[in-house]
């Protein structure tokens, strides 16, 4: 299996090397922006190089290319990357989508009604899994409906223009399109662990820069607390990064359940908790295999490394 040498992790004096940390425009990653913006990382004596992507696929490419030390991804993306590079490990649970992602429909009373309907969704693992979870309730699969491959924004537009009956999308498209398109949210990630976002790093980095990572997550933890407390300045920092107002960040975050260090310790990697990340990963790996996105079945245990979180 291919091993990508990670330049920044193999260098001798790890302390002098900034940690290259990458996120994308998902609102759940606001804690990263707050940690950067409020100098929480440097407060921990850590140099962090902040990379920001507008699309998950570019971020995945950069990570696999060894240009990133610590990456914030959806668990679906991680499963795909780990299939290519098994040294990639999940070390922290950022959030669960908690209503921020969902499915809107027009005249859909129950999952049974979806049969034969036209559904717009993006061909991305977490959206496929979300739709699968909904259809499964009525024993349906994607084969029983007409799928239109559209990015979440375009799916929203298509629903608003009544070109499709059902659309899988996220906020703010979710509520806006439902309103204009004369429909309602028929399924969402509220109170589920269907869509999880995590932080990953490679084995080598986890070993060589353990202290740095600990400092890193201490800073993130502070940021999460600020956000959860609705700190005005923190929201504003996140908003600036995402191109929205502090108020909008706050609204958006209502559809996201952010995890701090404690809940990471207690929930995230706890096999016994039905809402743990393990459950999410199992579903994701299963979906990925079903959808032929990965060729080999994967051990969920090989996907994460809770040593950093546990050591703190």
């Amino acid at each position, binding site marked *: 299996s291919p091993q990508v040498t990670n330049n920044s992790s193999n260098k001798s004096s790890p302390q002098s090397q900034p940690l290259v940390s*990458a996120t994308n*425009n998902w609102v759940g990653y606001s804690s990263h922006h707050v940690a950067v913006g409020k100098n929480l990382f440097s407060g921990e004596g850590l140099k962090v190089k902040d*990379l*920001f*992507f*507008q*699309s998950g696929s*570019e*971020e995945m*490419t*950069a990570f*696999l*290319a*060894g*240009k990133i030390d610590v990456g914030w991804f959806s668990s679906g993306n991680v499963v795909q990357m780990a299939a290519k590079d098994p040294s990639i490990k999940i070390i922290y649970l950022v959030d669960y989508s908690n209503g921020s992602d969902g499915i809107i429909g027009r005249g859909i009373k129950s999952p049974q009604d979806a049969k034969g309907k036209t559904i717009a969704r993006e061909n991305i693992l977490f959206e496929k899994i979300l739709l699968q979870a909904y259809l499964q309730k009525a024993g349906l699969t994607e084969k029983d409906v007409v799928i239109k491959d559209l990015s979440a*924004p375009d799916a*929203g*537009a298509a629903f*608003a*223009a009544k070109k499709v009956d059902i659309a899988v999308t996220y906020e*703010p*498209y979710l509520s*806006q399109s439902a309103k*204009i398109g004369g429909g309602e949210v028929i399924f969402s990630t509220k109170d589920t662990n269907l869509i999880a976002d995590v932080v990953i790093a490679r084995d080598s980095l986890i070993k060589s820069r353990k202290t740095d990572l600990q400092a890193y997550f201490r800073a993130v933890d502070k940021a999460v607390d600020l956000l959860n407390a609705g700190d005005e300045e923190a929201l504003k920092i996140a908003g600036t990064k*995402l*191109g*929205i107002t502090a108020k*909008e960040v706050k609204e*958006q975050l209502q559809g996201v359940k952010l995890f701090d260090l404690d809940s990471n310790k207690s929930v995230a990697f706890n096999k016994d908790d039905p809402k743990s990340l393990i459950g999410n990963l199992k579903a994701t790996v299963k979906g990925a295999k079903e959808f032929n996105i990965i060729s080999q079945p994967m051990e969920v245990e090989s996907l994460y490394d809770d040593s950093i979180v546990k050591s703190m």
Partner: protein
Amino acid sequence: MANSSLKIPQPSPRKYLYLPPSVFWSIRQEFPKWLSLLLVGIALIVPLLLWTAISSLNLVPPIFLPTPAAVMNAGIKMFAEDNLTLDVIVSSTRVLAGFIVAGIIGVPMGLAMGTFYSLDSLFAPIVGTVRYMPVTGFVPLIVIWLGLEEPSKILIIMLGVVLYNAIMVADAVKFIPNEMINVAYTLGATRRDVVFKVIIPGAFPSILDTLRVNISGAWNFLVIAELVASQNGLGFKIIQAQRFLQTDKVLFCIALIGVIGLVIDYGLKWISQRLTPWADQIHH
């Protein structure tokens, strides 16, 4: 050869065909400056009016097509709060850098292809295949080799344009008459001289046209380029605003790119005219 059977009972006052004078439809004749300005004005105002009409009549949901006024407001706010000026500067620099590199590589390549059949044979297969390939497909390789900084963004823009430069310049060189090359030979020119003293000056107006056509291509690739770990730029702003359904911002950025384009187009046309005083002035 004498088998024809012409009977021409020429009706005495034969009907002759005249060219009726026309201002609007004049071909390469004088054209009043005021009419030109009027038409340009119409061309700019009519789409704006259409847009206003469509958006005010709610033919399209306003979140997907806000009114021009809303877009204008969003723009003013972006300039005031989001430091849009920086985005404009950053994006323009990227486009310019990519475009200059594409010119430095593409134009000589095109000249070489148009001039030498050997180099045409050598480059045509590459130009003929790579030109068709979507640049997005190469983004991973670019990231690996050039990393996430400016060079990869510039390379993406460059790749999108360079082969178009080459093929269009090569096509332009074809139209230089053989006689011009022959004259140079009889005056003692080497092939090198022919390239520098005949082919380059002869193709110069077309090279300028080519660059004017293709600089818009460079702007088209900006969005793709700024997908790669950007912190700013107009393309970045467009994608960012799209993510949160800020259509007014998206449209403002697009319109801004359009205005930049218009300035570039008219500017390059003006420069073209200055640089080639010898060319037939066709208009005015």
